[in-house]
């Protein structure tokens, strides 16, 4: 039963690598942001896997369950709690980034990172 975890770890690694790839190689800023959000999803998936127990039960104590049996068989709830927070943080970060993109689009009329987020230090013209 260790196979499940290996498949899932490979998935999360693939998501992280996709995110890092898109950070460097994708030019469109919205797609870049989508790609970077995959890093967050991969990490979340990894942390959820830590709590997984093969053949276990959901960590909610239902009436009628034996507490000792439940403690031995339930998945670990701590990583799940962490991931809940992390999902919300990731969504809010993405929302702020997209809002900034919308504002910047009005100035540049393009979504290309090379134009929109280029070096600004030289662009401040030296006006006499």
């Amino acid at each position: 039963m260790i196979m499940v975890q290996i498949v899932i770890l490979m998935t999360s690694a693939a998501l992280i690598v996709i995110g890092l790839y898109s950070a460097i190689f994708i030019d469109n800023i919205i797609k870049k942001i989508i790609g970077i959000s995959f890093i967050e999803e991969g990490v979340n998936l990894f942390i959820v896997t830590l709590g997984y127990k093969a053949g276990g039960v959901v960590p909610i104590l239902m009436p009628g369950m034996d507490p000792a049996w439940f403690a031995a068989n339930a998945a670990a709830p701590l990583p799940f709690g962490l991931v809940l927070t992390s999902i919300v943080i990731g969504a809010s970060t993405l929302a702020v980034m997209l809002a900034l993109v919308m504002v910047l689009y009005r100035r540049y009329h393009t979504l290309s990172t090379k134009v929109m987020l280029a070096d600004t230090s030289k662009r401040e013209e030296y006006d006499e």
Partner: protein
Amino acid sequence: MNELIPLMVIVPLIAALLISTISRFNTVTKVFTFVVALCLPLIPILSNYGLHYFGGYEPMLDTVSGVIYHPAITYSFTFLQQIFIGAVGLLTFLVVFIYLTKYKKVSGPYLFLLFLGTAAVTAMMLTDDIFHMFVFFEILALAQVGIVAASSIDYSYEMALKYMVLGSIGSPIMLLGIGFLLALTGSVNVTDIAVAVHNGLVDVTSPVFLLSLALIFFGWLYASGLPPFHTIKSGIYSKAEPHGAALLQSFTVISMISIVMIMFRIYASLPIFEVLIVFFSILAMILGVSLALTQTDFRRMIGFLAVGELGFIGLGIGLGTNFSITAGLFQALNEIIITALLFIGFGAIVNATNEVDTRKLGGLLAYHPKVAIMLLIAGLAMAGVPPLSGFQSKLMLVQASLSCGFPEISILAIMVSIATFVVFVKTYYTMFLKPKPNDLNLEGKEVPKAMIFAMAVLLIIVVLLGIFPDMATGGISNFVGGIL
């Protein structure tokens, strides 16, 4: 009064929420903001040292292994936390004071961001829980982006978006490292993890443990703006309003030391940890100062200098002895105060001239003598001239690296100090002493009184810490002795 410990976080958080709701009533908001800001430095001074367990879950003793577990999120409050939270609280008060006197109509969202940032760094400093720290670290990143984007400087949105994109790589990577630690030890409490590592429950030579260090270390580089993040960090300082930048750099310093102290407690037994920190600190010192020398925008120049000074803190912690860590933390305290003073002072010049290019400025000494003298003293303190506070901490760092057997690092530290001095003197000369250019109009523009007041308060602290360094170093040294 241990009940005051959680209030240090709760008061700015609640105040932030309340201010953004009542911001329609201008006068009420102003008075309320002023009172809360005044409370911020007072709470840590009044509070007693101790621990606070959220939800009242006391530590549990495992009778089989004899190990104590911490089920609750724990806040620990000692001298170190007191002095840093006090410093950032004082800075928040001064910044809010400058803001309130500068604008007739206050903006609720901006004050919200300032208080949110303060609450986040306070929680990062207090917490003993690595995931709790991560959450507030993300909140801090959002607050920093907001403070930068709220400024009216050109290209501030671009810089905010760049910081955010880099942050959305840096922070998940750090979370991945925390996940590795959780997988190894089954806990997110730093004390529990440290005990597990020291008792040999975790194999410190295993690649997973080393990889968790690498990932958290990368997140730390992002948090503290060491290379490769030195360009973006100096960029956001230069694109924020001057008083905002003064607060932003204190956020950076505090998040840097709070994360590095957590890493130190977990990974101190690995020799590679210290090598990594020293390597990146030296890189930050060299790159920061050499890039600061070539800047013409003086806000950007201070930004790079601030990054270069961060290298000193890292150096002190990387050397790993009691004396050197004390020196590094003392340097952190000095840097918060001195860099804030520089940002506020140069911000006053921006206010009075609407100009940031050193080539178009000159002859300001005759127009703003008070600002000029206070900036001179601050610059000398940053470069490490006795008897100011920068001198004491840098002297301690040089002595520490000599006694660790690294004379090269001592020479390097002295060279960086000299180069910092060159940067400062060059900028000071072009701004204040050089003849005034003909097209520069200075008539009828005053520096706000609140800025001068803030600078004077910070200057008094600089001089006091320079003459009586024992006020801070004694307590810090005790704290460091406790974690070694």
